[in-house]
């Protein structure tokens, strides 16, 4: 029996792909947040447990993950502001495409210095050792 | 097969059908059967406007409007009907406004009006602003507004139901003078559900035909693929006459090769026509009004240029509509739609390049004869109780031999409303006519024949050949020889049609099958048009006979009435065509005696 619509992928434009990105980053952040609250709660259990878990964040794999998370948050945040502008600014819908480019540029502008700093710390500390 | 029972059945959901449905739906148990979703109807393609002597922007009155209509139709108009239409035009427009139609507005907030070809003040003294419009989408707005109001009034629609037969019975009756005759009565309709391939019989006290035009008998046409003259064809097969079928309007400016309409408003804005030599040829044909001459004259002039070798393009088969001397801003403001058509479909930029155009088959002036109450006539004056027709399928006749621009949107509203009201009133008192025994039998036979016939002929090829010969021989110039050629061709098409093969044998959405059925109607109508054109040995309005270039009021100031009649043989027919009997009907003249038609 036929079940679901099939065929080629709908070739949406910027608007659709930015929404796909927004949705995925939203879920990613949410899942992280759940975990993050749980691990932070360990401070209530005992400082040792917390330190142990936080230690796990300090290896380079997690460091990279952390970078990805920040990338996701920054995109989600900026694009969220774009969506809000589309909703409330009269000319928002007209300039949605331009605003998306602005979001992406702002994302790069924020991410580059952050990555430089963050990754240096992550890797220098790992290799340099404490 | 299922049988349904309604007081009123409306066939067609274009402007005429839905205007009728709004009236009938509120007063009687009504259903609308339509082969397209209502909003797909071709009324939505109309651009220019709908005229009424509102006098919102300058002095005007319905009497002038009547005169223009009569003169525009080259005096073949039934003047009582034209008077009704012009009078009720004002209410028709106001009705639409109250239903929500977003007309353009004057600075005072009233409905704005603009000029259109042939509409004049005080019997031809000067152009008058009579056309009410909504940008260049008047037809779209009318269709949408009517559909919206059908939704509001909960009108029942059967979408994608093709009506293929009228159920009529004949009773013996006597006229007042004692002569016996056969009185036709309407019992209902038979329709084919596209989705399932099932037949449904609808029994009804009143039936309104509103199936629109038949432009697809021609190749180059502004009409939709679906305008195959079904209503006319069905009525004709039931022995109901068709009136004035030789008159078909060719609109001068269709996109070359495609037929897509570029509104008359383009020339109103100052666009001009040029031939391959860059010459503004209308100066030769109509020295005073040039490019703004009436549609029939301009169309003939264009065709003549092409015929004399001054056409443009690789095949020298079109002329050019030149807007390049107009300001781009002006074009954008006034003609956004047509410029978009030119860009989209021909890749021509109207700001800088002239647009290829050629006359395009546009409007059937003829159709199922009705009186001013939209009642269908079975002969010159006997009505068929309960059967109504309105819109392009009908011939009231308010358009005579040449329809004025904007008068058709008016026609569908005025006579659609009249038909709807009359049908509901009739249904209140009338009894159902008993359905004939196995009412669907002839439709089943028709479909079975089409489905099982296996001679290998392709429907699309026959249709193309028909359209080619109609374009070549029955367009703006006609002669006895060219008409004879068409008749000879049609004879071969009929023979080929008996040997068609339909590839799709399924039941679901079998459009292949229906295209074959529609071709049957087209062939029938083409033949009627041609025979009637052969008979009319004069030139009048849209019908121009090169061998008889003048109007002949003495012999031909009358409507033609074509009947399907198996008793007519080649020998007994004046036109030597079997199966069609031609009669005439007098024109109703009230105030305006025929004059020479010049602008």
């Amino acid at each position: 029996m036929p079940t679901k619509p099939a065929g080629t992928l709908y070739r949406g434009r910027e608007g659709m792909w930015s929404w796909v990105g927004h949705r995925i980053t939203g879920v990613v952040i949410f899942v992280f947040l759940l975990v993050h609250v749980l691990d932070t709660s360990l401070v209530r259990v005992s400082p040792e447990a917390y330190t142990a878990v936080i230690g796990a964040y300090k290896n380079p794999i997690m460091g990279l993950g952390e970078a990805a998370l920040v990338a996701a948050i920054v995109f989600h945040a900026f694009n969220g502001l774009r969506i809000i502008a589309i909703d409330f600014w009269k000319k928002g819908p007209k300039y949605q495409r331009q605003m998306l480019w602005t979001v992406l540029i702002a994302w790069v502008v924020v991410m580059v210095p952050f990555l430089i700093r963050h990754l240096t710390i992550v890797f220098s500390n790992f290799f340099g050792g404490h | 097969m299922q049988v349904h029972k309604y007081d009123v059945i409306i066939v067609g959901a274009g402007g005429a059908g839905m205007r009728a449905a709004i009236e009938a739906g509120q007063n009687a148990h009504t259903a609308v059967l339509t082969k397209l979703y209502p909003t797909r109807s071709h009324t939505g393609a109309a651009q220019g406007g709908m005229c009424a002597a509102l006098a919102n922007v300058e002095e005007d009155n319905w009497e002038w409007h009547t005169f223009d209509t009569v003169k525009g139709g080259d005096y073949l108009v039934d003047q009582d009907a034209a008077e009704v239409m012009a009078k009720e035009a004002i209410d028709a427009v106001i009705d639409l406004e109250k239903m929500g139609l977003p007309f353009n507005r004057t600075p005072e907030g009233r409905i704005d009006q603009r000029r259109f070809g042939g509409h004049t003040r005080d019997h031809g003294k000067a152009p008058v602003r009579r056309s009410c419009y909504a940008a260049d989408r008047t037809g779209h707005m009318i269709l949408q507004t009517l559909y919206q109001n059908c939704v509001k009034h909960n009108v029942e629609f059967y979408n994608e139901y093709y009506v293929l037969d009228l159920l009529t019975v004949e009773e013996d009756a006597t006229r007042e003078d004692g002569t016996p005759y056969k009185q036709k009565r309407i019992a209902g309709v038979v329709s084919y559900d596209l989705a399932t391939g099932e037949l449904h019989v609808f029994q009804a006290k009143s039936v309104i035909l509103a199936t629109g035009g038949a432009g697809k008998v021609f190749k180059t046409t502004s009409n939709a693929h679906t305008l195959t003259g079904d209503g006319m064809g069905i009525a004709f097969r039931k022995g109901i006459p068709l009136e004035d079928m030789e008159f078909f309007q060719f609109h001068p400016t269709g996109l070359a090769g495609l037929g897509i309409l570029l509104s008359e408003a383009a020339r109103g804005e100052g666009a001009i026509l040029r031939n391959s030599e860059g010459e503004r040829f209308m100066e030769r044909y109509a020295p005073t009004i040039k490019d703004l001459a009436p549609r029939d004259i301009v169309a003939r002039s264009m065709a003549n240029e092409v015929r004399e070798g001054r056409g443009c393009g690789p095949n020298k088969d079109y002329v050019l509509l030149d807007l390049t001397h107009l300001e781009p801003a002006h074009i954008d403001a006034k003609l956004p739609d047509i410029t978009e058509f030119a860009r989209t479909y021909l890749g021509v930029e109207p700001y800088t390049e002239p647009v290829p155009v050629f006359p395009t088959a546009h409007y059937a002036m003829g159709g199922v004869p009705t009186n001013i109450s939209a009642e269908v006539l079975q002969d010159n004056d006997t009505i068929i109780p309960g059967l109504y027709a309105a819109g392009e399928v009908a011939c009231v006749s308010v358009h005579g031999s040449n329809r004025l621009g904007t008068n058709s949107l008016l026609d569908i509203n005025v006579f659609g409303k009249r038909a709807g009201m009359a049908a509901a009133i009739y249904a209140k008192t009338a009894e159902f006519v008993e359905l004939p025994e196995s009412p669907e039998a002839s439709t089943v036979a028709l479909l079975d024949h089409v489905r099982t016939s296996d001679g290998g002929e392709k429907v699309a090829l026959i249709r193309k050949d028909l359209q080619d010969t109609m374009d070549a021989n029955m367009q703006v110039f006609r002669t006895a020889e060219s008409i004879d050629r068409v008749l000879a061709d049609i004879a071969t098409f009929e023979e080929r049609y008996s040997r068609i093969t339909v590839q799709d044998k399924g039941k679901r959405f079998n459009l292949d099958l229906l295209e074959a059925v529609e071709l049957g109607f087209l062939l029938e109508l083409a033949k009627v048009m041609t025979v009637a054109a052969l008979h009319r040995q004069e030139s009048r309005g849209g019908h121009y006979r090169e061998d008889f270039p003048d109007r002949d009021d003495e012999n031909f100031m009358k409507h033609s009435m074509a009947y399907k009649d198996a008793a007519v043989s080649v020998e007994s027919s004046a036109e030597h065509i079997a199966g069609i009997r031609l009669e005439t009907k007098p024109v109703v003249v009230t105030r305006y005696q025929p004059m020479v038609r010049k602008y």
Partner: protein
Amino acid sequence: MSSKVIDAPRSNSAETPKYKRNKSSHSSFEMVAWLFMRVSGVVLVVLIFGHLFVNLMLGDGIHAIDFGFVAGKWSSPFWQIWDLAMLWLAMLHGTNGVRTIINDYAERNGTRMTLKTVLYIASAVIIVLGTLVIFTFDPCPAGAVIDLPSFCPVP
């Protein structure tokens, strides 16, 4: 002519019954939720960027984070409120976002209900837990083996 088999399209079969619109809701919940997403979004930009900046960019970045860092922060009511607001807003914002996504993609009502129940429970647990942690947090627990923040009384 070539032809290859692909999945059949969604069709009007028994499994997908004739189109039926859900009963209308007659409440403005969706509007409030929508509005909340925007308002909380704007506030979250400040809260989260501040949070990330302080945690990841200042000082030694992520490596500066340890029990002492957290304890130091939460000893000030300013950061307590900051993080509390962030927790609540982000959780409500994220929960509502995921609720939307479940509404969109869960095809059957049963699945939809189940997923949403799980979501709400999880969110409630996390919010309650987080709140408790922030308020009942003791920066200087007794018997700690590791270094405690310097402001703690030496045991």
